[in-house]
């Protein structure tokens, strides 16, 4: 092969998980100095493709070829991250791959030195200091990773890839936990590296970022290549249509009619617990018949609010009241009985017991209630009947009420949870990341049901990282940053830039705008 | 029919001192062609009855074993197989017609080793290490202490039990502790004690088996138990059809040759040996009876 600018080429990659084809005959090429954006809905197969390229997964068919030092394209052995690293591929994973008990420095060094040697932490420290100076990705290298914030961890992940002098850099949603300003810093570095010949594959759901950084865009849809665009010629609309495979129709929303307050937090403080950010003097009110958005960069205290409203925690100080009554102990069952519906943020982790059936998972919040049991014995028939109606009314795709929940796709698990909580016609709803990972059809179905619940008179708090979703649904915005909540006002008075500034902690942007 | 079929059921591995005395006697009888010998070792008390019944069903003529933890079931088995002779270690009396009992009554030679130790100790401190405080062990320790006190009223004893039958490293450590506390003679009820004595260059008193060749220059004297008189008598009784439910424990007495004193004269010196032998004579002629005390021995205060 004649020397070309091609750094990397994936040829006809196919990967199946059981019956699901996560990647179906995908090919792509990456040139020197090029930033290729990989786009697609959740579950489209982006991460899977990168995991194959990097050797975490073994493809069922197809091959990965990389340009070696002599300029020839050579085939990488499947399933060997070691080989990928040696070939100059660096990857920033979507989910952190950090050892939390080691320092940032040690995480970066890990695997770069001969195992049976004395190591060279001094030289490593110098080299990283230089990379930090050049890139502005500042982080205290000596601190243990478990004491770093998510943003800092993300920077360590990026430093890991840069440290190895990668010639191909894969970045799988690197900006998900960065503020817009931090993201901009990263882009500066990427542009400079690309100018020096580095090839970059960049994955993001944020179209703005993609448009600003990439040269070329590759769109995946349900595991297949849906199309390829040159960024200069692309616009948002075209990309979105390519991603979803059909024209995206906006949902039309009529403003709500707020009624009496039903749920309130007044001066609530909640301590840190595990990865959960503490809450500082939080006050908020939900009224019947309104949808309130809670916007914020992930990890700023959303989980604390969710824990309170889910009945998993009570305030250390301050007041949490529901229908005017103070909530004095953490007990999900009490809240459910009082008419509160809760959708968990992580539906697989907190929402369902994977090895139990769909019917069991629908009944799980009420097994002790007379509807599902008598004298401590389960009423299997009632559980079965409820499951059959729920499956039908919420279009839960599964083999039946006895199917194990773990076999359902993410979207169907979400529908199962919707069925579980909405069938009780709740008066208050906590919708935490209600459409994360859902396809567009399922998304609008969920939105429709949430709006219907509001129109019925329910008070709803929506927590989401997707600003589009919040602007679609909410009547009013709250923004959370560093454990503090500010009321940003009615949706009509807001734009994305303002909310973005508030999310980044510029709390005075409301006042400055007002003045 | 010449060859008697004998089965033994041991709750311990056959290396254990106690079982080994009878096991050896039975092997000797087998080598002489008198018996056909089978055995099971390390049988837990839970399984003991089953093993007895399995041997009984195999049609053995004499069954030897330990009924200490299984007194009732063992007697029940014997009652179910009246044609088999049972010779069982036991703290309870024999039962007619076929359940004979025995125990290792070597308190007499133990008393004699006590005399020698009492005369030889210079610090007047004797360390004693045992496994568990059970009657079998207690009575030997008491006899030993009585013997020592009979010649040396100033002698003091420290007594420790290691709560295990087979932990020689622990027995050894316990013995070291006694040496450190001033003991110059150790009473070695368990494996491990004589090792400590040998390493520290002091003397030890052996028990049940003769280990003097393993610890040259260390074993001052030993109270030996000989299984042969009892085993041979029992085999003969079975062969003669005269086996009765009697107490075979007496065959451990010195009078029957079941117990004996061995002493390393070069270590003990003539006076001590003479003193012990003199008392031995009075035991043998019945003019002196060593007391049997099964209570738990404690250190001198």
């Amino acid at each position: 092969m004649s020397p070309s600018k091609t750094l990397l080429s994936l040829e006809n990659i196919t990967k199946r998980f059981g019956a699901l084809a996560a990647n179906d005959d995908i090919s792509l090429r990456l040139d020197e100095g090029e930033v290729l954006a990989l786009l697609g809905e959740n579950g489209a197969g982006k991460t899977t493709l990168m995991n194959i390229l990097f050797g975490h997964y073994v493809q069922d068919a197809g091959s990965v070829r990389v340009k070696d030092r002599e300029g020839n394209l050579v085939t990488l052995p499947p399933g060997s991250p070691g080989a990928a690293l040696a070939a100059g591929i660096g990857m920033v994973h979507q989910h952190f791959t950090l050892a939390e008990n080691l320092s940032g420095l040690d995480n970066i060094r890990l695997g770069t030195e001969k195992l049976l040697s004395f190591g060279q932490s001094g030289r490593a420290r110098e080299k990283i200091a230089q990379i930090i100076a050049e890139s502005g990705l500042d982080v205290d290298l000596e601190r243990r990773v478990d004491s770093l914030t998510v943003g800092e961890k993300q920077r360590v992940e990026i430093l890991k890839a840069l440290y190895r002098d990668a010639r191909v850099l894969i970045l799988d949603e690197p900006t998900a936990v960065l503020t817009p300003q931090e993201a901009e810093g990263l882009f500066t570095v990427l542009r400079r590296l690309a100018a020096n010949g580095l090839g970059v594959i960049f994955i993001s759901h944020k179209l703005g970022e993609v448009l600003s950084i990439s040269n070329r865009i590759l769109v995946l849809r349900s595991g297949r290549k849906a199309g390829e665009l040159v960024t200069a010629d692309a616009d948002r609309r075209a990309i979105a249509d390519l991603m979803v495979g059909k024209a995206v129709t906006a949902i039309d929303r009529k403003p709500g009619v707020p009624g009496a307050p039903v749920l309130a937090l007044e001066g609530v403080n909640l301590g840190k617990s595990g990865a959960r950010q503490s809450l500082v003097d939080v006050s908020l009110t939900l009224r019947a018949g309104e949808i309130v958005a809670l916007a914020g960069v992930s990890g700023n205290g959303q989980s604390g609010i969710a824990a309170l409203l889910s009945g998993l925690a009570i305030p250390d100080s301050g007041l949490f009241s529901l229908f005017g009554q103070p909530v004095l102990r953490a007990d999900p069952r009490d809240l459910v009985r009082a008419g509160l519906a809760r959708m968990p943020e992580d539906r697989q982790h907190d929402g369902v017991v994977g090895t139990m059936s769909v019917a069991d998972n629908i009944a799980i919040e009420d097994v002790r209630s007379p509807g599902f049991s008598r004298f401590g014995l389960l009423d299997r028939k009632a559980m079965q009947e409820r499951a059959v109606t729920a499956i039908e009314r919420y279009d839960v795709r599964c083999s039946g009420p006895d199917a194990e929940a773990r076999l359902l796709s993410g979207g169907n698990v979400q529908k199962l949870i919707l069925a579980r909580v909405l069938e009780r016609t709740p008066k208050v709803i906590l919708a935490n990341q209600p459409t994360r990972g859902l396809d567009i059809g399922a998304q609008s179905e969920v939105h429709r049901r949430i709006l219907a619940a509001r129109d019925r008179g329910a008070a709803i708090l929506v927590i989401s990282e997707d600003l589009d979703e919040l602007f679609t649904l909410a009547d009013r915005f709250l923004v959370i940053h560093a454990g503090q909540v500010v009321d940003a006002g009615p949706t009509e008075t807001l734009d994305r830039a303002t909310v973005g500034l508030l999310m980044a902690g510029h709390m005075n942007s409301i006042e400055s705008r007002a003045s | 029919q010449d060859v008697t079929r004998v089965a033994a059921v041991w709750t311990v591995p056959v290396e254990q001192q106690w079982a080994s005395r009878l096991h050896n006697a039975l092997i000797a009888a087998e080598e002489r062609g008198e018996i056909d010998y089978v055995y099971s070792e390390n049988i837990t008390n839970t399984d003991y009855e089953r093993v007895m019944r399995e041997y009984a069903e195999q049609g053995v003529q004499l069954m030897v074993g330990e009924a200490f933890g299984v007194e009732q079931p063992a007697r029940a088995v014997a009652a179910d197989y009246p044609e088999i002779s049972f010779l069982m270690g036991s703290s309870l009396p024999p039962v007619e017609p076929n359940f004979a009992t025995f125990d290792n009554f070597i308190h007499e030679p133990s008393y004699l080793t006590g005399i020698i130790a009492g005369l030889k100790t210079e610090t007047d401190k004797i360390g004693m290490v045992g496994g568990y405080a059970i009657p079998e062990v207690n009575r030997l320790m008491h006899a030993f202490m009585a013997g020592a006190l009979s010649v040396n009223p100033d002698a003091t004893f420290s007594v420790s039990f290691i709560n295990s039958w087979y932990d020689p490293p622990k027995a050894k450590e316990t013995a070291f502790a006694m040496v450190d506390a001033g003991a110059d003679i150790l009473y070695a009820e368990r494996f491990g004690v004589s090792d400590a004595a040998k390493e520290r260059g002091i003397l030890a008193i052996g028990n049940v088996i003769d280990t003097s060749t393993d610890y040259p220059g260390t074993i001052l004297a030993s109270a030996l138990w000989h299984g042969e008189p009892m085993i041979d008598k029992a085999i003969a009784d079975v062969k003669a059809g005269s086996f009765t439910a009697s107490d075979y424990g007496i065959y451990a007495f010195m009078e029957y040759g079941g117990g004996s004193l061995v002493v390393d004269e070069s270590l003990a010196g003539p006076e001590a040996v003479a003193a012990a032998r003199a008392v031995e004579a009075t035991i043998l002629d019945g003019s002196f009876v060593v007391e049997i005390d099964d209570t738990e021995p404690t250190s001198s205060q």
Partner: protein
Amino acid sequence: MDVLLDIFGSANFWAAAIRIATPLIFGVLGALLCERAGVLNLGIEGIFVAGAMAGWLAVYLGAGLWGGVLVAALAGATFGLLHAFLTIILGLSQHVSGIGITLLATSISYFTYRTSLPSVTSPPRIAPFQPIAIPVLSDLPFLGPALFQQTALTWLALFMVALIAFVLYRTPLGLAIRAVGDNPASVEAQGLSVRGLRIGAVVTGSALMALGGAFLTMSAFDAFFFGMINGRGWICIALVVFASWQPGKALLGALFFGAFDAFQIRLQAEIGQVVPGQIFLMLPYLLSILALVLVARKADYPRALLQPWTKGQRH
């Protein structure tokens, strides 16, 4: 009080404490290595038995003392390999596999001992390791006499503490082992083999455990007895938690345990039984439990402990 001074002031006491601690040092280091890599090895009690038996038998059959040590380590490594296969390759329950290994190693050792020496009536003996005096160390005041009484295997144990600490904290290999026990994905993403590291740690750790057993038959004593391990392996499992998975603290924990045992033995010997002996025997267990309860919240558990890792599976 005089009694206490007598006990703690004597070099023999400290010598005993170190001796009692030696098998525990090997065992706790072995368990620590396995757990640092994310694998609980409840096979330790059986591996102790196997090491004690195999090492001793090898010496008895003429392999020489160091030959015996090697055989013991190989026996431990073999059972470690089996545990690694079951828990790392097949991803089976570490608890159950560990208990299975303990049953298997124990019964194989007993069976082999009895089958190779069918007719012994008193346990045969070997010439065990003898105390060696290390020139400078043994001349130290007070500490010298305590160290002077130790054999080569104790020195090996102390050296192992330093070696393992060095490897864990000062080499890239140690970095990888600590990482794989915390988050296997971190190791895989840096191109290292999760399984390889874990298998290596479990096999090496198991070999160390076996040396703990070998110490008992080749240094602390000179013969093999059924049942002589007597729960020492289990103690190590508790000591690891107590030591927060750090070699230095593991050494301290083992020494503390050894000192306590030596102390209670001496107290019994010197002042007789004031309370039932079992109280003393219970104390180390109760103290371990107490220590576990106290350190549990702060304990720096290897986060991936007990979690199997399968390549290409979502975790």
